[in-house]
């Protein structure tokens, strides 16, 4: 049986199994807020067998880029990204937290070399996955507020 909390979408992406409370952060990653051209539906605090409670984000007429999926993995590794085509789940991606987050976070240290004009991408080494702790490859500092520093 298919549980559909919100109206079915024809084409787009459903991000399911987001830890309850993180839906708005997922929206931030997807850049939703500034220039949306399609419908976005958010379900928050939905009962889930596996997780107790979860959030779900549905974006119509949009499939996510690999980099966007990497960013979501960083804050919600338990999420699944479902590609919907013609009302059906055409692809299902389980996220994996990378060992390094390259080009997706900004170092909070204003004096870090990764924050000036140099031909490099910011790079964070994942020190621990649960709880998530990342350290800047360049200045060695731990990034405290990860979500606030998503590029």
């Amino acid at each position, binding site marked *: 049986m298919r549980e559909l909390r919100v109206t079915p979408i024809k084409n787009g992406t459903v991000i399911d199994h987001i830890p309850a409370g993180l839906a708005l952060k997922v929206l931030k990653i997807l850049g939703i807020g500034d220039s949306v051209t399609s419908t976005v539906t958010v379900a928050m605090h939905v009962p889930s067998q596996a997780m107790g409670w979860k959030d779900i984000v549905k974006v119509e007429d949009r499939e996510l880029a690999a980099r966007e999926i990497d960013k979501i993995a960083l804050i919600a590794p338990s999420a699944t990204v479902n590609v919907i085509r013609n009302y059906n789940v055409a692809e299902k991606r389980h996220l994996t937290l990378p060992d390094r987050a390259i080009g997706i976070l900004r170092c909070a240290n204003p004096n870090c070399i990764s924050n000036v004009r140099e031909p490099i991408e910011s790079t964070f080494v994942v020190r621990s996955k649960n709880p998530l702790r990342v350290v800047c490859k360049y200045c*060695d500092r731990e990034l405290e507020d990860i979500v606030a520093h998503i590029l």
Partner: protein
Amino acid sequence: MSAFQGRDVLSIRDLSRADIQLVLRTARKMVPIAVGEKRSRALEGKILSTIFYEPSTRTRLSFESAMARLGGRVLGFSSAEGTSVQKGETLADTIRMVEAYSDAIVLRHPQEGAARLAADFTEKPVINAGDGAGQHPTQTLQDLYTIWDERGSFEGQNVVLVGDLKYGRTVHSLAYALAELGSHLTFVSPPTLEMPTEILEHVKERGLSFRIAHGLEEVVRDADVLYVTRIQKERFPDPQEYEKVAGSYRIEMDLLRDAKRGLIVMHPLPRVTEIAPDVDRTKHAVYFKQAFNGVPVRMALLDLILGGGA
């Protein structure tokens, strides 16, 4: 061929215990050459670039002296002024240019992580000579050499780090390395300038206990090493508060009355008022020797990296 040949030295954390011991033993062999008693041509024909974006006298001169004592040559700049850097050249480009002129690169830069970036853009070995508030591994090696040379070992030594333990970069790396090497650490600072928890966590991970104290009197009696750093005025909004705090961490003759005979007092220099001048005449004072040790230690590192095999 040494395990060091061609290697970068960016942070003291890049060096294992065995690496550190090799540098220290090599440094000891370098002393007669460092004082000019013996001659060496170990690095003849080698060129070292010293790229200093920020003024530094001691570090730069000790690298230059070390290279010259081993028969090598040095080129570079001692401030960004008048160089292509001022025209807006990136560090990555400067490094790729410098690489063509030399066998190894010593870099001092005001921003954290600069040496790591430099190392990514060149095949030549990079030695970090200080990056902002970040790492300064050759200073740490020089401090370690001084402790080892004066005290004979690291294990079981009671090392007291005094002063600004929060912002002082030298004490962070030193504490990290001493924990690796098995010393007992005591941290003495004003409550607002305590050692960051990250370093304390590391010490704990090594299975070592440490002490945190706010007064010197309570810890000086069983200390083997007293490592003193400067407390900067800017850290205190109230100048009177600064005077009071700085005064209470000053090393004076009175304080050393009950100290062990073999206690050594260290300081990365320059000192201002942290150590009273009459302490200089005691056997405890090793800070000038510590400064000299920068040369044999850097000779050792250069020799190991550039493969002279002296």
